[in-house]
């Protein structure tokens, strides 16, 4: 870890970008996160999370080639970076370790 932590919402967003495959954009991400969490997600929070992730170097964005959709306009597409992926995996591993500790304790 580079000392940059992931908030819960940021983690969802990061994973959504990964799940949707690289070069996805804001609208599918919003829909994905909304469906996965089953709560209404505003576009503002998605943009903000993406901006923070990009600032931390976990995703990078670029303007896409013009596509046939959306009247041939280009849009900003996001890709998870290697360090983003590593951070998400580390987080996952920490959770796994904790859950397995809980399992060994036989409390669940």
């Amino acid at each position, binding site marked *: 870890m580079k000392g940059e932590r992931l908030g819960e919402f940021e983690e969802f967003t990061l994973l959504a970008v990964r799940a949707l495959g690289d070069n996805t954009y804001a609208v599918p991400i919003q829909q994905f996160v909304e469906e996965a969490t089953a709560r209404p997600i505003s576009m*503002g929070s998605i943009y903000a999370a993406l901006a923070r992730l990009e600032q931390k170097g976990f995703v990078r964005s670029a303007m896409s080639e013009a596509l046939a959709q959306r009247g041939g306009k280009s849009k900003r597409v996001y890709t998870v970076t290697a360090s983003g992926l590593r951070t998400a995996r580390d987080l996952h591993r920490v959770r796994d370790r904790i859950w397995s500790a809980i399992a060994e304790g036989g409390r669940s």
Partner: protein
Amino acid sequence: VTREPRLPRHVRWLLRLTRVPRDRRGEVQDDLLELFTVRLGDRGRLRAHWRLYRDLASLSYRRLPSALQRDPRPRAAVLRDASGDLRYAARLFARQPAILLLAILGLSLGLAVSTAAFSIMNAAVLRGEGLREPGRAPGVLKASERFTSTEWRYGEFLQLRDGATRMQVEAVLTEGASVRTEAGDGPGPTTNLGFVSGGFFAATGGRVALGRVLDRADEQQLDSPPVVVSFVFWSTRLNRDPAVIGRPIRVGRTTATIVGVAERGFSLPNLRMVWMPMSAFGAVYNSERLDGRSNASVQVFGRLQPGVSLAEAEAQLSGVASTLPVDQAASGAGDSRLRAILDTDTGLGRTAGSARLAVAVFVFVVIGLVLLLACANVASVLVSTAITREREMGVRAALGASRWRIVRQLLTESLALGAIAAAIGLMLAYWALPTVGIMVEAPAAADIAPDVTVFAFLGLVTLLTGVGAGLAPAWHGRGADLVTPLKGEGAGRRLVAPRRLRSTLITMQAAVSVLLIVMATLFVRASVRAATIDVGFDSERLYAVSATLSGTGNDNGAGIRAFWARAIAELQSVPGVTAVALTELTPFGDVTKTSIAGDGRNRVVVHLNRTRAEYFETMGLRLMSGRIYTRDEVAAKAPVAVVSESLARAYWHGESPLGDALPEPIKLPALPAAAVRPVIVGVVADAIPARLNDHSAFAVYEPLDPSSEIFARLMIRVAPGTSGVIDDAVQRLRSIDARADVRVASVAAQLEQETSRPRMLATLTVVVGAIAVVLCVIGLYGLTASVVGQRTREMGVRVAMGAAPGDLLRLMMWDGLRPVAIGLAIGIGAALLASRVAVSSLLFGVSPQDPLAFGGAAAILLTSATLAVLVPTRRAAAVDAAGVLRQS
């Protein structure tokens, strides 16, 4: 055709109110639209709208970073653009070398003048002489109830130094002496010397570039005294020899050893070139060594100890001063005790700030005017190219260049021009500076070579001029019209505005030129007047001697009277001395005594002087009528007076004033004898004894009261064709009293100094005025040539309609000269104002409304402007109508 789906208009409008940066608004808008469309299908109209507004709201409380911030263009790209701009500018310049040369010529002249002027002002006013923390180094004034003086006796200084604990007290005695750097006989050039007390360098903060400074131990060094030379001395007289330490130089009558070279910029006080310990004073002038009983006057200053306030130090020093004996002879019996006044504005060559400010303001105004001209000139050249480049700008804009991108191209061009001009200007300034230094009579000790301040100034000014000149065409190119220039033909329609801009620039240039030419002519006439002004006597081979005696001075002036008596007797036996006279005031000395005569409206200055009878012979003033007062009358303090010719003419209107009393309106300071108004016994030729710009030769001479001899000075007239007489004479004077402080000044040198001020201003304004006219002519020529080129078609039509070449010529001439005529009127008005208000005190015997200056300026400007317009216009008038019309 399906309509392209869009967000409702009010949503798009609301989006602008959110915190989404403008460059990402389109992106966000597309996202919102897509979501909205999807939701419209999935969840119905109401839900879709509800979620849309929620998203909008969420966008207004979260700040979205700008795409520009997150995605900066690589820095190299900006540089690549700049180098592209530069390459483009170079190609453009190469295509129009004439225009380029004109612009560079004008700008480099302007920059050279301002650099030179700034260098001199920098040396004279801004830089100072290297005093560290001047606020903590006050001058020490000697004061009692009756007088305040800047000078202390050397003995008094020693006691002050020993008694002071809250400040370091130091002294300096400034003198001149011949300094020779090579072995050999004969005197070297007279050089400014500073005899300093041991802690002088420590107290002023002076440092050395080589060797060491002088210190307290050097005061004991009697043989081969150590000297520190100034940086300028080292550069000009010692060729910057690095092995100069330890070298002997001949100073006055002794041989001294160089121990240090002061760092550049240190010349305290008043442009010293050589510093020696005070103890060397006797050896240099072959007189007795300075000690506690010496009467030599020194200037005292101090350096406050850390944490001590001015008031504390002053109180303590006054305590020491109050124990010193008061010089009764100088101040009159019964004066109070002495006290010391600390003043951070005096001492160490500091002059009143206002005098410096006046010069600084004048020079800055001149610099400003020249730069304005140069700027206007380059701007007008660039505007003329901008007109022809309208098509290019149109293409650039059509290809998507932002306005800033186009402006940047123009700015790059003018800054490149500016940089080339600055390099040339700097070379010109370097080359011209020694000449300018001689012209303005900068003292040999002044360091006028450009330093860091000057380079910084030049850089700043170049930047300002470049941006200023580049912005004019950019402003003209604002709101670039995309279509018209591309069509190629329409260019003519937009010509009006830039032509008006350029006409305004020409008007401004003409006004400034006239102003400068008028000033230059006035100053030249004044300096010619000053140089040829008949002061009424021959100042060559005339010297003024002042003497301060040693001794306590309690003899009521008997000592000095005896000294003068012996001096006169001795000097009369010196071969080559033709006349000697005591007088209260010497010509062009520092002190004048005047009386204002007449009522309020008709005030005239009357110079008063008290002299011995021999004064008139010594000065060479011709007796017009009557007689000079006799020696007996002088001795008896008889109430008689001699007046100058013009005074006699003014008050007696051609009648003889002999035997009349001096007219009442002429006030006399307390008469020596009873209040009897003196009777006029003679009339002598006019002489101008004090300030050249007084315009007054009214003078009243009275016999010198023997009790006033303590203030008297001795005038010596040396026979023509002799040499070394004055050195011999001074040697004799010093031999009368080895402890006396005898100083000699050449009256010719003082007169020279008096006339140098208008000459400096004349030189400066002549050069600047000439450059202004050249710039104006260049600008006018360029404007006319380009306007003529653009109006060829119109001319063709006019010729086809039956206009004669003469008609065309008249039309074009008037069009070209109109801005000049307007500028002329404005400039003359400004010059009238300026000459009345600002400079009349600097004009010697020239009326501020001198018709020659104003007429001459108008004639010069109109002639050169006519020529500048005529040449291109003649070409246009000879236009071939058929050819032109066929072309279009």
